[in-house]
Structure formats: structure tokens, C-alpha cells
């Protein structure tokens, strides 16, 4: 019962924040709303017995990614583009489409029966971590995937640096040209 109450509170916050993202004019506000939404989602993860995931959610999403977003938004002055309207014709096409889609999926969900497995809800950090890192019992598959993800992140970082670097170089050359 108590869990339901917490859930409702967190859900309302999450949905509200998401709506704020949709409706905010400035991207910075949007980003901050997004952080709120993510934090509340992390709460829900904790509520249903995946605290580890919730922590990762806060650290990576609400922390790292959103920091990146806000940083970029603040670096780019033109981020708040007054000329472009918030919505246009496309928006009026997409909203009903998504609503219909959601309604359909919701309809399907309502027809199904699901119940929590009490043991699972109780706690799963141990199981999760053992599956991930205990190669002796579950084989190297997940661990390998984990390492690959590391490499992916590294390469993404390198790619981002390359993209940004080329851009910076061009700015410098433009500037030098301007001087002459």
C-alpha cells in the first residue's frame, strides 16, 4: 500500500517533468525537467527492488549525460532559438498518432495479467552482480559484453573529440583569416 503511494507520487513527478520537457521554451529548462524526471524514475527502480539500477540511472543519466546536455546548451549561445516556433504542423500530426499508438499498446497491456514475483522484488543486486561478473558460474558472456561496452564508450569519446576538434580547427583558421 505504501509502495503504491510512493509510486503514485514518483509517477506524477516523472510524468509532470516529462510534460515540462515537452512544453518548456528554453532547452535549459527542458534539460532540468528531464533530470527531475530521471531522478524520479530512479526512485521507482529502487521501489521495485532494483536499487543498483536506480543508482546507475542517477549517476550516468541524471549526472553525466544531463550535465553534458546543459553544458552544451550553455556553450552554444544560439540554443534558444527565438525564431523557430515550438510546434508546427508536424506536431499536430504526431500527437494524435502517438496517442493512438499509446492507446493501442495500453489496451493490449490492460488485457494481460501480470504479478510481481515476491522474491525478485525483494532484492536482486546480488543476482545481478553475480550474473555480470562471476564468470565461473555464468560464463564469460556478460562480462565480455561489459568490456565491449567499455570499448564502445571509449570509441564514442574519441569520435566526439575528433568531431569537435575539426570544428575548433576551422574556427581558428576562420579567425586567422578574418585578421588579414
Amino acid at each position, binding site marked *: 500500500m505504501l509502495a503504491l503511494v510512493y509510486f503514485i507520487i514518483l509517477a506524477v513527478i516523472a510524468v509532470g517533468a516529462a510534460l515540462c520537457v515537452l512544453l518548456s521554451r528554453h532547452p535549459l529548462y527542458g534539460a532540468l525537467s528531464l533530470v527531475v524526471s530521471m531522478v524520479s524514475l530512479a526512485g521507482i527502480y529502487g521501489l521495485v527492488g532494483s536499487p543498483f539500477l536506480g543508482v546507475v540511472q542517477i549517476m550516468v543519466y541524471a549526472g553525466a549525460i544531463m550535465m553534458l546536455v546543459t553544458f552544451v546548451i550553455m556553450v552554444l549561445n544560439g540554443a534558444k532559438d527565438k525564431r523557430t516556433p515550438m510546434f508546427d504542423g*508536424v506536431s499536430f*500530426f*504526431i500527437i494524435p*498518432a*502517438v496517442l*493512438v*499508438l499509446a492507446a*493501442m*499498446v495500453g*489496451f*493490449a497491456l490492460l*488485457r494481460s495479467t501480470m504479478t510481481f514475483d515476491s522474491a525478485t522484488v525483494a532484492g536482486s543486486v546480488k543476482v545481478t552482480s553475480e550474473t555480470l561478473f562471476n564468470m565461473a558460474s555464468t560464463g564469460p558472456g556478460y562480462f565480455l559484453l561489459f568490456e565491449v561496452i567499455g570499448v564502445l564508450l571509449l570509441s564514442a569519446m574519441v569520435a566526439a573529440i575528433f568531431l569537435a576538434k575539426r570544428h575548433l580547427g576551422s574556427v581558428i583558421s576562420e579567425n586567422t583569416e578574418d585578421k588579414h
Partner: protein
Amino acid sequence: MTHLPLWFIPLFPLIGTILLGTIAVVSSGAKKGPSEGLVGTLAVLFPALSFAVVAILACSMPEAGFRETLCNWIDIPLFRADIGFLFDGLSRIMLLFVTGIGSLIAMYSIGYMHGDRGFARFFAYINLFLFSMVVLVLADSLLLTFLGWEGVGLCSYLLIGFWNQDIKNCKAANKAFIVNRVGDIGFLLGMLTLVTIGGSSLLNYDGLAAFINMVIGAGEVVELVLPLSLAGLLFFIGCTGKSAQIPLLTWLPDAMAGPTPVSALIHAATMVTSGVYLLARLSMMFCLLEHVLLIIVFVGMFTALWAAIAGLLQNDIKKVLAYSTISQLGYMFMAAGVCAFDASIFHVFTHAFFKAALFLGAGAVIHSLAGEQDMRRMGGLINKTPVTACVMIFAFLAIVGFPGFAGFWSKDLILERIFVSGPILGPIVYVVGLATAVITAVYMGRLIIMTFFGKYRGDKETEEHIHEAPAVMLFPMVILAFGAIFSGYLWADSIGLTFFRDSMASVVGQAQAIYLAANPAAHVNPVIFAALGTLAALGGMYIAWKVFSRARIIGVKGASTVPEGSAASWTFLWDYIHCAFIAVVNILAWFCDVVVEKVLQAIQWTIAAIVEILGDGASILQVRKVRLQLSFSVAGVALLVMLVIFSGGLV
């Protein structure tokens, strides 16, 4: 093995080919050709060595002949063939004159081809030709004979187109090869028929004879006559191609585009007679096939007559001789058609001498007139080139069948055999043959008169340069002239010389006996035939003398006659018939190229265009706004989910 190996015979010309071919290829880049003396020596040496081997073997040959299997050739399921040689009475005769005349003509060519750029190449071809011809004759199976058969065709192609700078020569060569190819396919299919009848062992001549004997012994001839007739007919088609019989005769007159020694060797003495040789080889088979023999007789008869008439109307000295060759080949086929294979081979033998002599004489004339071939611009040459004239006149007497000369014996023998072959058919064919003999005398007399008698009708300039041929050319001609006179005495029935028949008996004797048993011959006094034959020859010569020695022959200006391809003259109606076939093929090709191919391409490009249009059509749906694009896809997903749910999918 006590005798010389048989493969020595083809080996020498093969070595000659390789050596001379190498010399020709290596020296082709150099400005100055290889030494003509060296090349000439090599070119004559190898055929002569081959001739020597043949002569040695011929003397020591036992009655049954030599047989030798070298190695396996093809060995697959259904089919097995060996490379083997067979030296018996028939191949002995053929080989003797093939290598002998071949060596003589090679010698003659040294003089004739003097100074030509392709000197070495020419002799390489000649040696290759002799190799193929020897293989053709010496082979012990049809398949190996076919190797020689196509090989000589190929050499004929190469030599007709020897002066390949002139595209006309090439066209004549192509024509010769393709027409021959038609015949060759007949040969090929004939072999396949035989294989189907009794397995690949039938391709071996001994195997075939054994098979036929077995069939006769078992009394199963009637069942097998139909397939054997098919095979015989197909082989005969092959023979008509190689021996220039109706309907595949058109290539031979055009083949005169080649150098004259080639015409003498290939297109008169040796290659064209291989059809007759094949019929004699397969005598055991043909003697059972009455209908095919009938066809052969008629084809031979019509060819002889037709070509003789055509010979009357030619002005090119070599073309007259070409038609004469076709006509004489017709005689040989007539003989083969009444199962007188020994007589036909005898005529092949004598014909080789006098026709080679005639051609070499014509070559000497052309040589002395610096390439002039038109008889209307010759005349009176007997004073200027007496040796050539004598040789030609002796050969002329031989071909018309003047008593005592070679042609007299062989031609009379053929006519006699034809007459006695059947009650109604025999006399009819005989009369036509006799008429042909008269016409032969007329056109050959015309040739001699126009060339050697009367006044010279050419340019003054050329007249001054007329000279007798060099000794290296005259020597072979004289020998051949002797042959033209005396070779007939190998089988002079009337005076009791039957050496030739006896030597052939081991090969064709049994077949002829079988035929005679089925068609008993009437007995007629041979002297009557001799008298009639003589009369025909004399009559023809008289007509020729009357008509042509008085007639004013108008010298023509302009280029001499050259092979004219299918447009030669009306006499060879067959050219037009061939043209009709070619036209059909061309129309088919045109249809394939212009209609079918275009339609297919149209279909191909239509499909491509449809795909492209569909692609373009889809790209209309692609809008500039990426977001709109995305929303379309979301809407699409929504639609799909809706479909799934309302069709009762997930529920």
C-alpha cells in the same frame, strides 16, 4: 617387329612442319627471309623420306598388310578409340602417290614460290598437309581418319588463303572450309550412327568389317540396313564435301585462288580423292546398301556431266582444270556407286598423275606469263615453252582417254563396270558417262588449243618475257608426264595386266564379291568398250579442233579472272542454292540480332525502368522534413499495431 614402324610415315612431314613452321615464325620479323635453299631442301627432304619409308614398306608388305596400334586416344564410358595405323593394299597405293607426288610438287614449288615472302610458311603448310593426308590414309579407324580429314581441310583453307593480303583469297578459303565443314559434320554424325549401332569398335575398319561379316553370317542384314543406310548416307555427305560432288561442289573452283602447286597437290591429286578413298575403305558397309549406292551413282553421274559442261565455259585456265577435276571425281563416284571400288581407286591413281601434270603445266604457263591466267590472252606458247607444252599434251591425251595412255585404261574400266552393273540403269549411266567423255575431250582440247596453238594474244611486253620454267619445275612435270603415260599399265585388262586389281583385292575384293553375288554382271566383250571409249575421245578432240582452232578468240583487256565467289557464273547454279541457305542463316541471324535480342533487351530495360520508377515513386513519399518523415513512421507503427490488435492478434 621386323618392318619399319608405320608411324615413321607421318612423322617425317610432322617434323618438317615443326621445323619449317619454326623457321617461318622466327624469320617473320626479319627483313630478309630465310635462305630459300635451306628451306627448299628441308621441304622436299621430309616428304621424300616419308616416300622412301612407304616404298620400303610397300615392297615388304604381306598380303594382309601391317597393323599397328600406338596408344589409346579417347577412353570414356560409351566410347573408346585408339590411335592405330593400317597399311594394306589400299593405303599402300594411296600413300605411294600421296607422298610421291607430294615430294615432286614440293620440289616444283621451290621454283614456283621463288621470291615469295611466305616461302617457309608455304612449305610448312605443305608438310602439314602431307602429314594430315598420310594420317587420313594410314589411319586404322574412322576417328583417326577424321583427324586427317579435317586436317587436310584446314591445310586447304590455309593454302587457298595463302596470299592473305587479298581479302578475296581469304573469302575463297573460308568458303572452302565451311562447305567442307558441312560435309565433315556428315562424317561426324555418320561415325556417331555407327557407334550407336554397334559400339565404338565399329569405328575401327577391321572391327567394322568383322561386324558386317558377323551380320551377314547371322542373316540380320535386313534389320540393320536402315541404320547402316543412314550412316552410309552421312558418310557420303562427308565425301561430297571433300570430293566436291553435288551438292557441295562450289568450293573447288574458288579454291583455285591458292598457289598453283597447291591446286595440283590438294585440289586435284590427293585431298579431293579422299572421298573416294573413304568409300573404298567402307566398301564392306556400302556393298550392302543398295539405295545409298544408287544415290552415289546418280550424284557421280550428274556431277561428271554438270562439271564437264561448266568446264566448257571457263576462260581461266585453272578453273577449266578445276571443273575437270570435279568431273573426273564424278567418274570415280560412279564407279564406287556400282561397287567397283578397285576401278575407282585406279582412276584416282591415274588421275593423280595426269591432273597433277596438267596443273603443274598450267602453273608453268602462268609462271612464264607472269601471273596471267586468262586463256583468252594466251596462245601459241608451244614454240616458246616446248617442254611444258609436251607435258600438257601428254597429260591431255591421258585425260581424254587416248588409247595407250593412263586415262584410257582407268576410264574404260569404269565405263565397262558401269555398263555391266545392271540391266537398265547400267546402260543409261554408261551413255551419260560416254557423253561426258566426249565433252571432256572438247573442253580439254579447247584448253590446249587456246593455250598452245594459234597466235599469242597478250601484251607485247609480256610476250618478250615469256620463258620456259626452270629445271626444278620441269623435272617433276616430266616425271608426272611419264606417270600419265605409263601408270595405266598397272591394270590394263585388255592386255592381261591385273597387278593393281590383285593388290586391291585384299581390301575391297570381298565387298565386291558380295555385291556381284547380289547383282550378277552381264558379260560383254571388253573390246567394244575400248573401241567406244576411243571413239568418244577422238570425236571430242575432233570437235574441239573444228570449233576452236578456227574460232576467233578475242583477247580481253583488264584484269585476269580471279575467283569470283558465289557470283562465279550461271553454270554453277549450286552457288545460288548455297546462297539461299546462307541467306536463310543470315535472316535467322538478323532475326535473332534485331528482333529477339532487342525484345529481350526491351524487357530487361523495362523491368529496370519499372524498378526505377517505383523507386522514384517511393521517393515522392520522402518529404524534406525529417520530422515529418519520422511521424509518418510512428503513424505507420500505430497502424500496424492497430491491425494486429483488431485482427485478434495479441488477444
